[in-house]
């Protein structure tokens, strides 16, 4: 049973068929979300939201693009919304974190040394612009072709190539600044 058959069944009222879609794409969606949020708990929440949102928007899926392209679009949008909300809450969390520091400290210190390298990479990825980051995540985490990325992002393949190149240069610059010391 292919995606369009499943969707047709779901739209005809067979809700349970939607589980086939979730089963098929949950790893892809989760991986993509991880590329944006880097945290399992948040990634699970967002992945769940992606499938719920996709289910309720299924009627609006016109089949002009592949179902997974449409699903990736929802995923990227929800991730970017999450990150924007997080950015807005940053000041407040900085304030509350200062109270939590003594509790966290022990745990963080033991892990800090081994995770330092990854933390720097994560920071570098997070500092990329929304478009560069989306292209980078879809390319590295999902190993999508430039054509597929272009379709998800609604841009040309040339623009994807450019975004990936810029992302690479920016990451290199940022990592050189930290690791190269």
């Amino acid at each position: 049973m292919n995606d369009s058959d499943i969707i047709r069944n779901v739209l005809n009222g067979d809700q349970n068929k939607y589980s086939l879609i979730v089963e098929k794409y949950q790893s892809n969606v989760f991986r993509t979300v991880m590329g944006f949020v880097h945290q399992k708990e948040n990634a699970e929440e967002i992945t769940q939201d992606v499938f719920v949102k996709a289910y309720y928007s299924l009627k609006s899926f016109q089949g002009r693009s592949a179902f997974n392209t449409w699903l990736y679009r929802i995923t990227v949008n929800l991730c970017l919304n999450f990150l924007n909300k997080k950015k807005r809450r940053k000041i407040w969390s900085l304030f509350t974190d200062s109270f939590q520091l003594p509790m966290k400290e022990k745990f963080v210190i033991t892990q800090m040394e081994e995770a330092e390298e990854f933390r720097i990479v994560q920071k570098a990825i997070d500092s990329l612009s929304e478009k560069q980051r989306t292209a980078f995540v879809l390319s590295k985490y999902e190993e999508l072709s430039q054509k597929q990325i272009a379709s998800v992002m609604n841009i040309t393949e040339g623009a994807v190539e450019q975004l990936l190149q810029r992302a690479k240069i920016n990451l290199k610059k940022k990592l050189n600044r930290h690791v190269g010391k």
Partner: protein
Amino acid sequence: MQNIIEKFVDRERLTGPNPFLLTRVMTKITSPAVEKTILHPSLKFALVVGGLVSAVAGGIALGSTYSTRTNNEKVLCINDTQIENFGFYYTIGEE
């Protein structure tokens, strides 16, 4: 440099979703939707503007109830207890 990025990406790619994710999604979908009462953005904006207008109007109303009262009557207060003392020393000097 490329190695560090690839190591990081590989580590995150290996993280799998919760095995109950499917169940959770299906439960959310099949359970009756709870209608949330979310304010329409334009209504939210109207409420904020209304709040501001009422705050400003309240401030103006409170401010206009204040009136400067001027008192034209003049009152002179004299403490005469010390005057008597001068008189006392004066009489002593005469003696």
